[in-house]
């Protein structure tokens, strides 16, 4: 069973604060993703990566940076957090990038509150 671990699971910060969300997958998957989930908007893709050092822009990238340091680790960075970034964040990984037979494996989520 694919394993994707996120940390922290809960985070509270203030407007203008710095936040780093971490994700590690232990399944040798090439692709990793960061999504945010908000009521009424489903899952929206922020950034994704198909390998160490690679970064692709998703649909809602503004205010977010990401870095893929190794095949296992993908980080989401909020350098000047704003209340609009209060959300539930999910990391996911897949072996084939989601194409036809690719399956996304999601972590358990990181709840971020920006006061």
């Amino acid at each position, binding site marked *: 069973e694919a394993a994707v671990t996120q940390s922290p699971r809960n985070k509270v910060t203030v407007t203008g604060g710095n936040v780093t969300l971490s994700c590690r997958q232990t399944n040798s998957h090439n692709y990793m993703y960061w999504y945010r989930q908000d009521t009424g908007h489903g899952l929206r893709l922020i950034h994704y990566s198909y390998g160490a050092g690679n970064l692709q822009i998703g649909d809602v990238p503004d205010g977010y940076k990401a870095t893929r340091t190794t095949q296992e680790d993908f980080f989401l960075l909020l350098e000047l957090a704003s209340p609009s970034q209060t959300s539930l964040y999910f990391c996911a990984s897949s072996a084939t990038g989601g194409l036809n037979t690719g399956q996304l494996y999601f972590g358990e*989520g990181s709840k971020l509150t920006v006061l």
Partner: protein
Amino acid sequence: QQQVRQSPQSLTVWEGETAILNCSYEDSTFNYFPWYQQFPGEGPALLISISSVSDKKEDGRFTIFFNKREKKLSLHITDSQPGDSATYFCAASARNNNNRIFFGDGTQLVVKP
């Protein structure tokens, strides 16, 4: 423009009834359609998927019906159980789409005992 649309936003059925969740898409190059199930406090998990070469896929009580001409699909959950209460996401992808999966906004299903 939203690539994948789902309806209804929420659905309540009684135990034993059939729940029908609808999905439509815009891009005719989409050829793979997974459905993900999400329980509160958890990440989504793949439930069942279909490719565009098929018009039906069954897995136990879960069946996908696919209409390529109308760019629509639906997930039928027969003999619904309270344990099926969850949010269901329809998704779509295409081989030539830069490895992207597009998600709908989800249908929140409640099954009453």
